[in-house]
């Protein structure tokens, strides 16, 4: 018999018992839908983590001060006051470095007109917009001459604009008072949204780092140096060069420990995405167990079906079906059942996924490979769990089968 004819027979047999066929499929349907939904949620979370890490900056390397020991207590990284803008200038001279910006961070109250708001004030260089890949929405960014002059100019994030200037008038030219110092608003950043860790990146004010140091912190050191490597491939090299350079500048001789720390975000991204991948496989594993349970359901029903249809099998053999043909037919029934179950599961999974995306506002992506995998796996489940009942049917003796009551 041809493959088509076998599938046809299987289909007819399944249609003859619609309700039972549907119920038998249910295990597979649920299993596959669960696989698709869990994988979609996992993969969505992973890709959103990746994109938010990418959003932190182009090929970003972060240099932070190291730890210091004060009265026996060691501060964490960043506790030392060891990085200066001059370090940044030196790093900018290195080959493969595209841009450097110091970062001076303070959280403080900002006042404008009758409104006030606590936000993060970041003192940065004009290269910051390039490093963070963060365009200006209105006005302009400050320039190197603003840095040189420690100018009292500020660029606001969208959240700060809506809190300090709620009337909707453009804030350009207005004054924002930071720690008693009036800054003129010269620009507004484009909206950037949440960071990978859930922080509102738009809740910030950017001012020249020199202004932040001289007028606000009164320190000669910075909190961070943000370094952008020329390309992703150069990240490791730049990291090493920066380390060597700073060791020289800070006169650190091994085994003396560094008073700074150089990190790149690729390693963070890799860790985050591998955590996501582990979660994804874990969820898929749980879902695969439910597929196996579904397969056992198929086997159970196929066993019942073979017993119930013993006389039919005897008749088919009497009118000329070879036992191999009977085996094929029952196997085909199991495979058709499980594959259709798998396809229905995919449809439900895709619907469920868009439901999750819509209701929980959770980013989801369905990797196409998982659709192929889960349908393929359901077919395998059908073959595996259908084989035993099918062989039982094929091994029936036609005489006894015809006599079966």
């Amino acid at each position, binding site marked *: 018999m041809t493959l088509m004819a076998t599938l046809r027979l299987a289909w007819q047999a399944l249609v*003859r018992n619609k309700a039972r066929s549907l119920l038998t499929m249910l295990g597979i349907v649920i299993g596959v839908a669960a696989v698709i939904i869990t994988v979609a949620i996992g993969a969505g979370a992973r890709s959103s983590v990746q994109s938010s890490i990418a959003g932190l900056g182009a090929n970003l390397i972060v240099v932070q001060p190291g730890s210091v020991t004060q009265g026996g207590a060691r501060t964490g990284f960043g506790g030392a006051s060891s990085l200066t803008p001059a370090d940044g200038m030196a790093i900018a001279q290195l080959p493969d470095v595209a841009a450097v910006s110091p970062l001076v961070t303070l959280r403080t109250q900002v006042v404008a007109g009758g409104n006030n708001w606590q936000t993060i004030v970041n003192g940065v260089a004009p290269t910051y917009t390039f490093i963070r890949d963060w365009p200006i929405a209105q006005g302009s960014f400050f320039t190197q001459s603003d840095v040189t002059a420690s100018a009292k100019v500020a660029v606001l994030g969208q959240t700060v604009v809506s809190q300090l200037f709620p009337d909707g008038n453009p804030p350009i030219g207005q004054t924002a008072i930071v720690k008693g110092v009036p800054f003129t608003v010269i620009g507004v950043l484009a909206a950037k949204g949440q960071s990978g860790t859930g922080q509102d990146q738009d809740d910030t004010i950017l001012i020249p780092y020199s202004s932040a140091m001289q007028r606000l912190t009164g320190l000669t050191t910075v909190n961070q140096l943000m370094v952008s490597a020329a390309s992703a491939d150069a990240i490791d090299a730049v990291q090493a060069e920066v380390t060597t350079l700073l060791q020289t500048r800070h006169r650190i001789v091994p085994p003396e420990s560094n008073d700074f720390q150089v990190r790149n975000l690729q390693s963070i991204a890799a860790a985050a995405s591998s955590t996501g991948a582990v979660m994804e496989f874990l969820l898929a594993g749980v879902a695969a167990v439910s597929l196996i349970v579904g397969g056992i359901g198929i086997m159970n029903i196929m066993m019942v079906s073979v017993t119930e249809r013993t006389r039919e099998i005897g008749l088919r053999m*009497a*009118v*000329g079906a070879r*036992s191999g043909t009977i085996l094929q037919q029952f196997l085909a029934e199991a495979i058709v059942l499980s594959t259709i179950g798998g396809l229905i599961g995919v449809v439900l999974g895709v619907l469920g996924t868009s439901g999750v995306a819509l209701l929980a506002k959770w980013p989801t992506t369905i990797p196409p490979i998982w659709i192929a995998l889960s349908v393929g796996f359901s077919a395998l489940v059908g073959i595996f769990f259908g084989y035993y009942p099918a062989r039982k049917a094929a091994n029936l003796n036609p*005489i006894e089968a*015809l006599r079966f009551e």
Partner: protein
Amino acid sequence: MSESAVPVVRVERLRKVYTVGDDQVIALGGVDLTIESGDFLSVMGPSGSGKSTFMQIIGLLDQPTDGTYYFEGKDVSNLTSDERADIRSRRLGFVFQSYNLLSRTSAVENVELPMVYAGIPEDERRRIALEKMEIVGIAQLAKHAPNQMSGGQQQRVAIARSLVNNPGLILADEPTGALDTKTSSDVMRLFKQLNKDLGMTIMVVTHEFDVAMNARRIVSFRDGLIISDKPNETLAGVA
């Protein structure tokens, strides 16, 4: 015309022994029989006489322990189960006491079933099935499912099914066992007509004397042996 010269069935010293635990049960104790093409015989005997075993071996559903079986001139005593299935598919027709129709399947699809396994194309199958249903007088029931038909109608569907491969031999195992007297005689009249008009070779296994009397030849079994094999004298004068 060489086909008519070769008997449809020829068995020599056919034996069938079952082993049940430590005991050996002799179902057939050495049977010789020849069925010529166009014959219509009844096989009679009480239960346990070996007539059912005989029918199963003739129908190639079972194999003899000893002896030789020639079907249409070919030795089929020691075929594999696939080879036997292929002969059943092409050259044998079966009618059973309990009809054995597929439920929730239309009459015409039931009639088509043997052709599915013989690999006959679909439109061809439908045409042949309807033709055979016409012959047994149930063409109007083609779309009906078995549960919408009377016992007699169901048995006619089964008979149509046995005809679709133009078998060399039709084997009917207690074909009237589940039918009332009136329907029984209708069904037997149909067998007679198939034998007379189409020249079908038919073997009916029954324990009912009235049913057996429809055949031209009556073979009686007892204790695994043929105890009588003679023409039906009541018909001899009529024919």
